């Protein structure tokens, strides 16, 4: 047990990590997605991430944090004390990270909630009503994200069962991927479902900032500045590089030509897959996890998606859903006790961890799917989910926002 004494080094790293994770959403996700849509929708796409981040920021300090991380109530939910951070002393330390101030921990966790819902937006771009999104964000955070975060990270029942999720394979990525799938099932296909990125440069900037910020996401999840953070950092970078390379390989195998969109898609897939495993595996494990995730995602996107015909516009399910599930499972395989004593995977003699991980995946998947469908249907019946056809065809930027992305 670590002594509950403020450690300025740990605090410095966690402040930095929090800022890094914030950067992942704004402008990371916003640009990554914005570059992939049609130019007539670039502003709307970016806007979705900005609203996701801002609404979540406010909710989190009002009641979100205690519900996810407050004193556990029967494994289900945290107790909603400390509304508006009331009663939290500036110098109080975090119960779950006793060397850093609690307020730093609150801010760090907030950025995770925000990016999760921002990720969902990639699936529904180019056709969802802006007002529907504004309603979706707070409801989904409250009814889906907060409980799941509590179950896995806040001392809830999945944590008690031993589900391992270092930085958010299930809580963040699988969760976002499944929610995305649920929404697109309700929303239906766009009239033009082609993926012809209007400005890959934006997506490149977004992807690189995601990679950069992800060091805060994963190495920050060590909650201290020591060996474990270093190990998670190196595992993260290694898996990402491996996944980038293997997606490019898949491109070459399938179409004969390596693509830059493939490369950055692979990088994101690698980052997703290593997320739950980062603080548990060796660099050898990281290479395998990264190398395989691109193959799985590539197949999901190029085969499964066209077979079933759902219109997951920017492949949120294909990358975050599939990659997050694979990462969570792989954690159960590759977790090495000499990296982190909290996790032992099948490869090191604990095959039961695979089962535990599968339960975690199934619970999160099913809960998110059902709840998101319900939320989506309710919004559809009240506000309506989808814009007018004319608005969709001519572009959301001028119709919904009276702005246009370029005057070049």
């Amino acid at each position, binding site marked *: 047990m670590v002594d509950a004494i403020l450690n300025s080094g740990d605090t410095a790293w966690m402040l930095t990590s929090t800022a890094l994770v914030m950067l992942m959403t704004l402008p990371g996700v916003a640009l990554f997605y914005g570059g992939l849509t049609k130019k007539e929708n670039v502003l709307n796409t970016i806007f979705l991430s900005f609203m996701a981040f801002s609404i979540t920021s406010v909710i989190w300090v009002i009641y979100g944090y205690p519900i996810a991380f407050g004193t556990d109530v029967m494994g289900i939910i945290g107790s909603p004390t400390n509304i508006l951070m009331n009663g939290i002393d500036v110098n109080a330390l975090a119960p779950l990270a006793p060397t850093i101030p609690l307020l730093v921990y609150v801010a760090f966790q907030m950025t995770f909630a925000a990016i999760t819902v921002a990720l969902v937006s990639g699936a529904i771009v180019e056709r969802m009503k802006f007002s529907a999104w504004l309603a979706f964000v707070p409801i989904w955070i409250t009814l889906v994200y907060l409980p799941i975060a509590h179950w896995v990270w806040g001392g809830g029942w999945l944590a008690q069962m031993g589900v391992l999720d270092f930085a958010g394979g299930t809580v963040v990525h699988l969760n976002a991927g499944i929610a995305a799938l649920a929404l697109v099932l309700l929303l239906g296909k766009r009239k033009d479902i*082609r*993926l*012809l*990125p209007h400005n890959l440069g934006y997506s490149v900037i977004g992807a690189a900032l995601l990679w950069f910020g992800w060091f805060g996401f994963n190495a920050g999840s060590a909650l201290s500045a020591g060996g474990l953070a270093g190990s998670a950092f190196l595992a993260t970078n290694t898996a990402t590089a491996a996944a980038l390379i293997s997606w490019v390989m*898949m*491109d070459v195998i*399938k*179409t004969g*030509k390596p*693509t830059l*969109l*493939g490369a950055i*898609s692979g990088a994101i897939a690698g980052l997703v897959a290593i997320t739950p495993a980062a603080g548990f595996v060796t660099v050898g494990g990281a290479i395998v996890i990264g190398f395989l995730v691109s193959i799985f995602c*590539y197949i999901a*996107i*190029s085969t499964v998606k*066209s077979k079933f015909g759902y219109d997951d516009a920017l*492949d949120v399910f294909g990358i975050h859903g599939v990659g997050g599930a694979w990462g969570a499972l792989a954690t159960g395989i590759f977790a090495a006790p000499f990296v982190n004593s909290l996790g032992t995977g099948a490869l090191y003699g604990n095959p039961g961890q695979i089962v535990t991980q599968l339960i975690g995946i199934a619970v999160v998947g099913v809960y998110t799917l059902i709840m998101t469908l319900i939320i989506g249907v309710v919004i559809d019946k009240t506000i309506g989910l989808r814009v007018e056809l004319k608005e969709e065809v001519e572009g959301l930027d001028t119709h919904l926002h009276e702005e246009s992305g370029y005057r070049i």
Partner: protein
Amino acid sequence: MKEITAVIRPDKMEVVKEALQEIQCNGVTVTEVKGRGRQLGITESYRGRDYKVDLLPKTRLEIIVNDEDVDSVVDTIVKTAQTGDIGDGKIFVSPVEEVIRIRTGERGEKAV
């Protein structure tokens, strides 16, 4: 007076421009366009799916000349823009009834 419209390969623009300059044909208006002719399109692929891009980038030159200069301009363009491969482009000649130089208000042949 005639309007010569030439649609050529973008990478031929530089040489055509220089060749035209040599025969004292300086005035030209250039537009970036996309086009299709006998040339097949190219394919772009994103996340494993192929998309046919059948409109290819071309450069469109619009040149107003006096009647007697049409042939030399057309010949110059054909000579310099030709590669022999499909996609070299086309030239159209149409009648122009009046030309006005905005700066001076001059009209007709001397305004060209």
